[in-house]
């Protein structure tokens, strides 16, 4: 490590030095390679903030601690590094919880540092005291309460190790105020955690590899699944090689999008609840599924008892607790995806997949014709148009950070991601309000990349206060609000499953362009398809952040859709001739 700011930290890396606990927090972060953190100060974390000026770390002041957790999350998703969020005790800490749970459900490496009241008053309901390690226990990979300055460096180093290893996840380090104020010897090397112990139930046996290769050799209708684990493990090349060598089509989960280039001829696109019919039909017809780094989430499988009944399943996964959880694996290869595929690939030889690929291709025909993006411009503006044009105009290269709901699914359908880490979205927890703060984090991770927020009018308002953060930090982010005046996805469920009783889904919003203007952010409303291109280009060309308020068709729905609890083939197709609507039996 080189000279670090005006603080002579390089000496401290080799020479143990007395520092305050607060200084140790920063010194440890610097040594872990952290350059950006996101946070909000308060009484119980003030010693840490007081020490910040001595260290070369950029702190982004958020407007709500949930934003800090999402920014750290977005930073981690965009960069593959650990994101760091900081908050004070009590409400500061509890405000992080939604963001921590978001990172947990999507296996994102985030370290949250919270201040707590002095150890002498822990457990007494002191001012702004909350049991944050207790509260976050089920939504962190691990958490720890630190009450002594000498324990801070080991705790933070351990947190970084846990957050990044195996299946990644968030870790919270709660540090009492007296620990921040006390002095201890900072010795980064000595604070090194014990060597990482892989999960003892990881298992990749030769016999299982052989069996997997045998299944692949004899499969007539195989499908590869690419999940979030592909990018987490860095196995893009291996998955692609497996697909190309065996001429096997690849279906992706929402978080897997980008694992195989969207333009790749073997890429089928997203599977599951809002996957295209040919993807889900292929899965139902398949005789072999090769699941790579995914967990058979209910949004992917639909009704389990009717799921891919004809297929044998090879499940390659790093978390042993995911094996046989939802879908029974015929062959389980429990380990790091990339390492497993590297062992599997030499056993797999080329095969002819033409017949099966032709069958899938033939089933695309009709659905593609009814696809909104292929219909002539009716003068109406559809969200699909916006996303499709955004994809076209950015060459599919932009980092898109979505919120949760209809626009998220349209993004997944119409924006064809070429590279991993270019779609940042809350998949598991489905956290509305995620997009804007996560995009800020992503921009800090990749300042050179074009970052777009795609959010609905509902979710955007949940964290819209972070517009100020954008201005204060002077960063360039483009914001596309898909504004339909409804909580769109909920409205869609009400339309399909609750007799169009639009209870509490019509939504009054501020004029988002004026709202942006009040923050010092330029913007423009877009009402027709003809305007989309010039608006997107204006936003891209603008020097600062830019907000586009797309006034889209109000009661448009995401098609196709598999009602929750229905089988993959029981999908609601795009309206047209003979729309097929199955009866839902789930909420």
């Amino acid at each position, binding site marked *: 490590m080189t000279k670090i700011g005006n603080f002579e930290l390089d000496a401290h890396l080799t020479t143990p030095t007395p520092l305050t606990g607060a200084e140790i927090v920063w010194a440890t972060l610097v040594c872990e390679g952290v350059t950006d953190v996101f946070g909000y100060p308060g009484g119980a974390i003030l010693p840490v903030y007081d020490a910040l000026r001595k260290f070369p770390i950029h702190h982004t002041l958020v407007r709500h601690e949930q934003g800090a957790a999402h920014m750290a999350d977005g930073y981690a998703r965009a960069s593959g590094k650990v994101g760091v969020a900081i908050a004070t005790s009590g409400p500061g800490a509890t405000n992080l919880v939604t963001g921590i749970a978001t990172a947990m459900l999507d296996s994102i490496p985030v370290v949250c540092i919270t201040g707590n009241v002095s150890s002498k008053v822990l457990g007494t309901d002191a001012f702004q005291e909350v049991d944050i*390690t207790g509260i976050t*226990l089920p939504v962190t990979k691990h958490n720890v*309460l630190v009450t002594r300055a000498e324990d801070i460096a080991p705790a933070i180093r351990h947190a970084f190790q846990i957050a990044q290893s195996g299946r990644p996840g968030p870790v919270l380090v709660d540090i009492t105020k007296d620990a921040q104020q006390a002095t201890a010897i900072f010795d980064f090397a000595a604070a090194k955690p014990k060597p990482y112990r892989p999960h003892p*139930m990881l298992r990749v046996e030769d016999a299982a590899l052989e069996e997997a290769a045998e299944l692949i050799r004899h499969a007539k209708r195989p499908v590869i699944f690419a999940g979030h684990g592909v990018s987490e493990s860095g196995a893009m090349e291996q998955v692609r090689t497996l697909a190309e060598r065996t001429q096997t089509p690849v279906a992706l989960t929402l978080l897997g999008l980008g694992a195989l280039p969207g333009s790749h001829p073997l890429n089928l696109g997203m599977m599951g609840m809002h996957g295209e019919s040919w993807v889900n039909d292929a899965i139902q017809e398949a005789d072999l599924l090769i699941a790579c780094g995914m967990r058979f989430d209910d949004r992917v499988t639909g009704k389990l008892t009717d799921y891919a009944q004809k297929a044998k399943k090879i499940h390659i996964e790093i978390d042993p607790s995911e094996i046989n959880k939802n879908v029974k694996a015929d062959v389980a290869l429990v380990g790091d995806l990339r390492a497993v595929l590297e062992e599997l690939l030499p056993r797999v030889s080329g095969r002819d997949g033409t017949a099966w690929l032709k069958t899938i291709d033939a089933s695309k025909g009709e659905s593609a014709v009814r696809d909104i993006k292929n219909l002539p411009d009716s003068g109406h503006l559809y969200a699909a148009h916006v996303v499709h044009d955004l994809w076209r105009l950015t060459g599919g290269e932009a980092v898109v950070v979505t919120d949760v709901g209809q626009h998220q699914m349209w993004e997944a359908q119409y924006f064809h991601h070429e590279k991993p880490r270019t779609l940042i979205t809350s998949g598991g927890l489905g956290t509305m309000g995620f997009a804007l703060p996560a995009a800020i984090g992503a921009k800090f991770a990749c300042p050179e990349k074009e970052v777009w927020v795609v959010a609905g009018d509902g979710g955007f308002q949940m964290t819209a206060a972070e517009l100020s953060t954008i201005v204060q930090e002077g960063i360039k982010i483009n914001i596309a609000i898909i504004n339909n005046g409804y909580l769109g996805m909920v409205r869609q469920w009400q339309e399909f499953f609750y007799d169009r009783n639009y209870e509490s889904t019509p939504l009054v919003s501020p004029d988002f362009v004026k709202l942006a203007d009040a923050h010092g952010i330029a913007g423009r409303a877009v009402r027709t398809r003809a305007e989309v291109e010039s608006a997107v280009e204006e936003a891209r060309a603008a020097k600062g952040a830019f907000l586009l308020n797309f006034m889209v068709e109000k009661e448009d729905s995401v098609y196709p859709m598999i009602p929750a609890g229905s089988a993959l083939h029981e999908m609601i197709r795009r309206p047209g001739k003979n729309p097929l609507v199955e009866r839902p039996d789930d909420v």
Partner: protein
Amino acid sequence: MMHTFVAYVEDLPGVLTRVASLFRRLNINIHSVTVGRSERPGLSRLTLVCEASAEAGHRIRASLYKLENVVEVDDIAQSPSVTRELALIKVGATKETRSAIFELVEVFRARIVDLTADSLMVEMTGVESKIEGLIEVLKQSDSPILEICRSGKMTMRRGRHTSGVLRAMGAGEDDKLDSEEEIAQGPHTDAAVETE
């Protein structure tokens, strides 16, 4: 089916909460849990009994291992093992009714560990069914049961061939060994324990 997990966990504040929280999340009721020091410094040994489907065992064990403070987990399942429970039972008994209790205690090979003018305390160690048996006959006696304190199950595999020992000897990984052991030693029932 009934699962018995034996886990070595770090002896730190909050570790029991983490273990218990995992079962709470899965909506599994813990029948009993006993925790105490083990032969390894800094590690507590925990025996946890719960009712869950046969397939759940693998996932529970895998999830327990995901807890940072859990060092080792063994799913005893049907493997040959010794299971014991300790019970302290306080009975209201006077000079006149005492002798009947003494007889029962003798038959069950329990012990009297406290005696006052109007009460006595019985200490009993054994398998669950034996303790249940003593409680049942005490209920049918003329002396009222005042208090019962039961430890919950403690379990240890039979023989030297515990998964932990074998792994320490570098023999390989435990999942595989579990099944090998079961094949070699056959299934185990509580009745087998009863006879020793």
